[in-house]
């Protein structure tokens, strides 16, 4: 329940961008992506499997990431995801838009009566 609450606190539409950014660092399996997001956000974002795996499937279908089945260290098979060139271009574009939007929001929040 707590995990759900935390994952829902993600700004809507940003999960795809965060997954792309995580995979831009290195190829990773689904569980690793969730852990990495939690680590980098210092525990603020915890994404459960119910949100993460459908998001990965959607990105894979759109050709932004590519999945590859590999043997794991425990002799199991795990699906590792990597960013595709299209995914890299998409991440670049979304990062730029996000920075513009957050900068604008920050300016609005910092505005005072004297500046207007």
């Amino acid at each position, binding site marked *: 329940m707590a*995990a*759900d609450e935390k994952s829902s606190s993600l700004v809507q539409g940003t999960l795809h961008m965060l997954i792309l950014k995580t995979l831009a660092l290195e190829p990773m*399996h*689904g*569980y*690793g992506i969730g*852990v990495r997001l939690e680590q980098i956000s210092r525990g603020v974002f915890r994404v*459960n*499997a*119910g949100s993460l*795996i*459908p998001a990965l*499937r*959607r990105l*894979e*279908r*759109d*050709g932004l990431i590519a999945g590859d*089945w590999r043997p*794991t260290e*425990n002799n*199991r*098979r*795990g*699906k590792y995801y990597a960013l595709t060139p*299209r995914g890299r271009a998409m991440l670049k574009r979304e990062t730029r838009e996000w920075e513009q939007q957050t900068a604008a929001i920050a300016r609005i929040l910092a505005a005072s009566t004297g500046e207007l």
Partner: protein
Amino acid sequence: MTRIARLLAGLRALTGRARHDQQLDAELRDFLERSIDDKVRAGMSREAAERAARMELGSETAVRDAVLEVGWEHALETTWEDARHAARSLRRSPGFTTVAVLTLALGIGATTAIFTIVHALMLRALPVSHPEELVEVLSRYPGEPRLSTFSWRHYEYYRDHSQSFSDLAAVSRDRLQVGGDGLDAEIVDGEYVSGNLFDTLRLSPLLGRLVDDPGRRLELGDRGQRRCQLVMLDEPLPCRSRRGRAEPSRQRRARDRHRRDPALVRGAAGRCHACGLGAIGARTLASRSRADERTARWGSACWRVSHQA
């Protein structure tokens, strides 16, 4: 590009559903086991770690459904499943099925019939040039119902003295006897029309010719019979044998005769629905007797609005 990728991925999922399900199961299992391993490494017992990992993962079915809903093919699959379920249910209860099918058939039939009428009367334009310029003239005397009939003399007066309309044609419905060599005489729905009807409607014949001088009167036949000098046959008019069956060879013969005899005109460009009177089997051109002309009430007067009006 993204759309094509999605389309191809959906087709692959449709054709390899079992393999996709296996891969999803494997991915979920890997996710769960990695979570358990992490928790065990953090100091939890194996049992506690499994319980905690399963709680974090939530319902596997819900996750599986969420993944399946990503693809467009999911809607296709669920629709197909719904259709199969409905078919099974209908097969189990034939009484309900019969009532449902009859209700649908009656409903669709009634709706189609009503729409056909509305389409014919209100939506479909007349198959003539500039149908929006055509108007039907009605007359009404104080205290009397509205009429759409005029005497021939009135028609002539209106035609010759009107300044707001470019043409005025007259139409009168009747039952006509149509026959000929090798053909049985047949009574068909027809119209007596003024010679300028086709000019007014701007129709051209498929075969033969129309009246050279739309204003001229045509002479009557022997003994004052109301025999037609000129006949225009609508294209759908069948030529029937004595047994009442339409015979293509007789139709061909009739058509050949129409070709030989320039006084017979067959068909106009499209079925002619003069003044909204509907499809008519045959038309005779201004061939009523003078006595008829004095007394007959003409069915309708069809006007074309003048551009100068």
